[in-house]
């Protein structure tokens, strides 16, 4: 073969040729292995989503008394039972709910709740107690104890959340697998990686940079070459959030050996003019998730997938004077999947009468939800990952 035509053809199939020698050969799972490989998709609603205007306790008069200007009209609510119903902007989820693919867990929180966005988000992401400061995330610790590769946990975003960072292992942030892959092709970088690959790296920032670079190399290659084999054909709304879920669908359906996916949607800090702002975000959320769940059902992956949505806190039961709500405490968690043992509303609606200083009292510790996911879905003993053993729930 002439040199020029060789270059031409190798450029076309560059992926295979450019596999650096130091990388372990990584293969996508054979199709037979595919079924039964369980994925967890975590959706974070940032800013403190108002759970009471998401899953609305319309059967409770206190809801209407405490929220004269921002309560959702009974006639607009998509009712689920005679107590609770969906915000009308979540109407796309009704079908998912009716199919038995959705769980609503009410009043989830933790003792001595913190009302700071950052602190409470840290608590949720690390799985700590309110007075305990952990520097690793709960998924990160799962990676530490059970996984060998950073692509075992993928955040579809440009940056990586604390939840995904362990002491030894970290997940990988991938907004666009091809873009990430292309940046790793640079021969100069490959040489630097090669020179450092077997060196003991320091714990300082420079060591951290080299370590990140080396991990990126092995993961970017694998993710790109595996995920490009599958094209998502289902329709998704044209929002960045839905697009992220579409990327997750591509990853799952292409057979990536990834256990955990992480996606975020922000804009829920609704101190002022809540109805419009939250309504917009909920519509983006509901339409995106409904498309994603239907897509997974279509491709036969819904039974192997569990989706969990959380926010760092709920909001005060009583609205403020600016048609908004201030930072509160307990909130609902939404779970989706094809294999739910007790679909629908999992536990009692929040108690609006017995409040703690104007805030909901939590009934379910969020770490019991995590424990369920770890024990029954990811098959790892939750006490290895969480700060102690939690009993867990029965939704899967």
């Amino acid at each position, binding site marked *: 073969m002439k040199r020029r035509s060789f270059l031409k053809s190798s450029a076309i199939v560059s992926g295979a040729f450019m596999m650096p020698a130091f990388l372990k050969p990584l293969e996508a799972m054979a199709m037979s292995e595919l079924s039964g490989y369980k994925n967890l998709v975590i959706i974070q609603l940032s800013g403190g989503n108002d759970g009471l205007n998401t899953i609305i306790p319309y059967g409770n008069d206190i809801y209407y008394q405490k929220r004269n200007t921002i309560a959702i009209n009974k006639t607009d609510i998509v009712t689920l039972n005679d107590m609770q119903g969906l915000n009308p902007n979540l109407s796309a989820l009704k079908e998912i709910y009716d199919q038995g693919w959705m769980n609503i867990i009410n009043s989830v929180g933790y003792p001595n709740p913190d009302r700071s966005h*950052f602190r409470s988000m840290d608590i949720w992401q690390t799985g700590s107690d309110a007075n305990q400061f952990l520097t690793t995330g709960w998924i990160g610790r799962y990676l530490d104890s059970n996984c060998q590769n950073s692509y075992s946990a993928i955040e579809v975003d440009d940056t990586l959340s604390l939840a995904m960072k362990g002491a030894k292992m970290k997940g990988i942030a991938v907004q666009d697998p091809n873009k990430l892959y292309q940046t790793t092709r640079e021969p100069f970088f490959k040489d630097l990686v090669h020179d450092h690959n077997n060196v003991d790296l320091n714990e300082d*920032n*420079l060591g951290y940079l080299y370590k990140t670079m080396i991990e990126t190399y092995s993961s970017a290659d694998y993710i790109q070459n595996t995920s490009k084999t599958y094209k998502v054909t289902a329709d998704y709304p044209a929002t960045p959030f839905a697009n992220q879920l579409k990327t997750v669908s591509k990853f799952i359906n292409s057979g990536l050996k990834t256990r955990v996916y992480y996606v975020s949607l922000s804009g829920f800090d609704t101190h002022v003019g809540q109805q419009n702002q939250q309504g917009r975000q909920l519509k983006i959320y509901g339409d995106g998730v409904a498309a994603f769940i239907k897509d997974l059902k279509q491709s036969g992956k819904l039974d192997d997938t569990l989706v969990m949505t959380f926010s760092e806190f709920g909001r005060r039961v009583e609205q403020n004077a600016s048609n908004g709500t201030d930072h509160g405490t307990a909130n609902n968690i939404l779970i989706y999947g094809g294999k739910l043992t007790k679909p629908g509303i999992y536990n009692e609606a929040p108690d609006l009468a017995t409040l703690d200083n104007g805030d909901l009292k939590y009934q379910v510790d969020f770490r019991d939800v995590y424990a369920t996911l770890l024990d029954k879905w990811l098959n790892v003993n939750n006490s290895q990952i969480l700060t102690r053993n939690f009993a867990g729930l029965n939704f899967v």
Partner: protein
Amino acid sequence: MNNARNIKHLYARAGFGIRFEDLHDHENWSANKAVRKLFKASADSHPITILTENIDLRPQANKTDEEKIRIQEERNTQDKALNLAWITQLSTTDAQLREKMTLFWHNHFACNIGNAYYEQQLNNIERENALGNFKTLLLQVSQSPGMLQFLNNQQNQKGHPNENFARELMELFTIGRGNYTEHDVKESARAFTGWAYDGKTGDYIFRPKVHDDNPKTFMGQTGNFCGEDIVEIIFSHKKTAEFISTKLYRYLVNDVPDAEHISQMTNVFYKSNYEIKPLLEFVFQSNWFYDDKNIGNLVKSPVEFLTGLNRQFYITYQNPDVLMQFQRTLGQLLFRPPNVAGWPGGKSWIDSSSLMYRMKMSSIILNAGVIDFTGKVDPGDEAYLASVRKQQMNVIKRVQAQPNWDKFLKEIPDDTSKIQIAEFMLEPKLNQAVIAEVNQATDIKDTIIQIVSTPEYQLC
């Protein structure tokens, strides 16, 4: 005595790095003299004045859809103009220290609103007071329309307090977590009722009618407190000086806090009644500031990275829009912090994608994306390099950046070796791999492109 390493370190932290000619000029200065010169160069504050109209103050008559779209476009134009005005000022100013500290306060008082005029005003408050008094700075920031709007104090009214500002004031701006209670948040929110800005003029006003003038109990004291009283009480606690000192230590010295050094800083700051200049002088004149472990171990923020590169190579941009694209890609778009806590900084700048983009960014700006490579190349690499070369014209068309190579190269003294150039451009000590790469490179320009495309270049 040749003090080059220390001077270079000082300029990397108190500014955005030093140029060859300046180092040559200053390398015999003592640290104290260099610090004096840095302050002198930053004595004056040059506000950004690119925006002259506050779009929100226009009469709000019924608007057609076309008018709404046009106003949105004007807003976008203003956003862009403001961003570029600041990144240009950062890249060209002689007042490096003032801009570096303005960037610190920009992150400390993170504010993200849809009004560029108010953002410009807040930015100028931060610049004006960047080296002044922290309490004055805090009060001016808190009473600026941008912050009143961002933290909803506009809606904080007697009978229905909105706690957003009161909470962030303590948690993020002054004393830090663990030093106040939920009760303190609720009570101080009442004290700040009535702090607002006039929707017609954008000026700060105090609205007595919505101010709660009943007694409040705050941090153990009871009184008929107004907002200024609350600030006084917070500042009387030394923890406030410690909180700011810790944050500054992590910005200027090391992201692993050193309790002893921070305690020294806290004393200086508290005793001077929160004057910023003496605190900075103390840091830059401390021996520990020049310890090995404090050199070349801070991750540059994306803006520090771009600013440093622009300054070092005298880069001009024919299409300044790309500067915003670069900021966005690297994860730090000025005036658009992710939330009230600002950008977390340090290691969090670096993850898989951002590291790769950053390492590629220098060559994209300086050399059409080409990192010429003389090491062992396999066939796949050749294909890649061929495609990069094919893309060169496109990259040049997109980026339209003009480094002044002649000026840059002329400043390098003739007898400087390639390794010495690398030692100058990179703050961390060189490791064997980088030395090998640099030694292999044949062309001076290729060498420099390689140097600024290393992980080491991400540190300062």
